[in-house]
């Protein structure tokens, strides 16, 4: 068998037969090529989109919800409806202590502030934050020597600021070292201690973080907090957790238990779940389409090969009359089919690869790219190729089996 595969005559026969049956050869090859190409294109794009989503989400605790106070919509225990609801620091502590499944509670305050540095200025969101925020949101610090707000900042009401990359670009010269530099927020000097990367996605954005205690002091906030960000333990359903927390908050604030509007929320976990199921759906669809394409390709090939059954049967009859054994005939056809589908499949893989490179070059660059690292695993591709080769071979074997199972004279009689 090995000798057979390295025999020049074997390949001469394959080439002869392929070049004789040009139409069949071309259509078979186009079918396989197109199937593989589409499969790679689809799987690769799907992976690219998935990667893009994952990159956007990666900085966020996905099992999290933001809760903030609004106004009551039902009168309760002598209170009129329409009462403003303000969250307190104590609420955060009690939720952390009382509600099962809560991992972190991060109280936050935010205001807009007028920021000046030298001749440059702008209006930005300024938030008072605890170090915990960094644990939950995982700020990506850009300059290695920078840091986020720490406990000492909080304890000493320090006037330090961690700013976003955008603000750094707007308020500083290119390549200027921001550390230790001062910026004025509403006429108070803050020292810049960190710069973080801006993520394109995932809930409320903040431009400048200052210590929570400093914020309290400057804006005279008392124990009020703007909102809190709550993350749930992995195994807890974030939607359920949100309901539990709101109910307990309504209880603490003497609000009607059914007053849905008293507390607003933004459930990142829910959003993430729907995106995730969208991605799963897309992946499923892609596989479905890809496999359907492969099957359609194989059937197209099958048709073409079957059309030539009669012609082939006669030829096989002649060969048998000249002394070819059934094994020799089938072997030849298998080599031919495998060769044909392999070449076409490899061409499909190569052009599929080009398409993915093209996608990457045109749509895959930059931070907000639609396709990030569009790629397919080589294993998947080779399994697809293997399936095609096997199916192509089986289809190619149909005439061979037919023509070798009948008597040679019957094969010869085929017109």
């Amino acid at each position: 068998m090995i000798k057979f595969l390295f025999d020049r005559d074997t390949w001469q026969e394959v080439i002869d037969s392929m070049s004789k049956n040009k139409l069949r050869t071309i259509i078979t090859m186009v079918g396989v090529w197109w199937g593989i190409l589409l499969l790679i294109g689809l799987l690769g794009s799907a992976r690219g989109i998935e990667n893009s989503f994952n990159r956007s989400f990666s900085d966020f605790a996905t099992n999290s919800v933001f809760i903030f106070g609004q106004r009551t919509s039902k009168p309760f225990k002598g209170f009129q409806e329409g009462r403003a609801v303000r969250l307190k620091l104590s609420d955060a502590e009690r939720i952390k202590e009382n509600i099962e499944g809560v991992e972190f509670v991060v109280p936050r305050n935010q205001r807009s502030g007028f920021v000046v540095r030298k001749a440059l200025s702008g209006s930005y969101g300024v938030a008072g934050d605890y170090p915990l925020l960094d644990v939950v949101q995982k700020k990506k610090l850009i300059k290695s020597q920078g840091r986020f707000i720490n406990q000492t900042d909080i304890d000493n009401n320090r006037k330090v600021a961690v700013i976003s990359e955008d603000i750094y670009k707007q308020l500083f010269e290119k390549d200027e070292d921001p550390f230790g530099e001062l910026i004025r927020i509403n006429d108070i000097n803050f020292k810049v201690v960190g710069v973080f990367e801006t993520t394109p996605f995932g809930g409320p954005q903040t431009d400048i973080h200052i210590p929570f205690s400093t914020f309290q002091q400057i804006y005279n906030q008392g124990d009020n907090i703007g909102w809190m960000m709550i993350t749930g333990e992995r195994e807890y359903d974030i939607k359920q957790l949100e309901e539990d927390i709101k109910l307990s908050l309504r209880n603490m604030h003497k609000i009607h238990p059914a007053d849905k509007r008293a507390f607003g929320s933004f459930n990142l976990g829910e959003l993430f779940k729907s995106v995730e199921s969208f991605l799963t759906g897309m992946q499923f669809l892609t596989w479905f389409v890809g496999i359907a394409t492969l099957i359609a390709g194989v059937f197209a090939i099958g048709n073409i090969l079957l059309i030539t059954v009669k012609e082939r049967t006669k030829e096989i009859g002649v060969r048998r009359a000249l002394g070819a054994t059934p094994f020799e005939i089938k072997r030849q056809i298998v080599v031919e089919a495998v060769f044909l589908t392999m070449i076409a499949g490899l061409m499909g893989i190569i052009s599929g690869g080009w398409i993915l490179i093209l996608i990457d070059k045109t749509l895959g660059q930059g931070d907000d790219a639609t396709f990030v690292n569009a790629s397919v695993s080589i294993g998947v591709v080779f399994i697809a190729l293997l399936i095609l080769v096997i199916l192509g071979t089986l289809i190619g074997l149909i005439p061979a089996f037919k023509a070798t199972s009948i008597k040679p004279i019957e094969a010869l009689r085929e017109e």
Partner: protein
Amino acid sequence: MLKINQLHKSYPIGDSSLHVLKGIDLDVESGEMVAIMGSSGSGKSTLLNIIGMLDEADSGDYILDDVPIKNLNEKKAAIYRNKFLGFIFQSFNLINYKNALENVALPLYYQGLKRKERQEKGKFHLKKVGLLDWAHHLPSELSGGQKQRVAIARALAANPKLLLADEPTGALDTTTSYEIMEFLQQLNDEGKTILIVTHEEDIAEMCKRVVRLRDGIIMEDKKVNQVRASQYV
């Protein structure tokens, strides 16, 4: 060379069956040149195909070169066809995407000969049928007579003991037919055993023995004085 004893063959047709060969007895010695004649549908081709192991008899004995041919597996049958038998068909049955030389060399491929050897032998036989200059032409570029000569060269390539020709001149005009017959006579002179199915009397007369079939049995079997084809060419 071959011995046939009470050979029967019928074809199923719908629910009934058509009894084509009804007990054929035939002995052919080495070196004979036999014409098998009979009206259309008398079973000439059927008989020849059974002799050539392209078809199987229902009952009866067939001994080819001292080997009983019965229930051979297809692999063995293929080897016998390759070594003992050469076929010449009315419709030539050349492989249309192979040139003359490749067609002639094909049986040698199945004999497992080396490429070079095949080429040499193929050329030798093509030369014998006078078509060496046409070695690299496709069958579609050849005339009927030329195609049949390529087919004869192919049948000869494996140096078989028995040549079987089913109406080899059926698709050819008289002159070309006689050329082919002249060549077959030469081969017979050299010692090849040849069986020719034909329904043309003049072709039959160019053989050494004529077997006539009718209604599935041999009606007449006689030696004839061979008419040499060369006198007409």
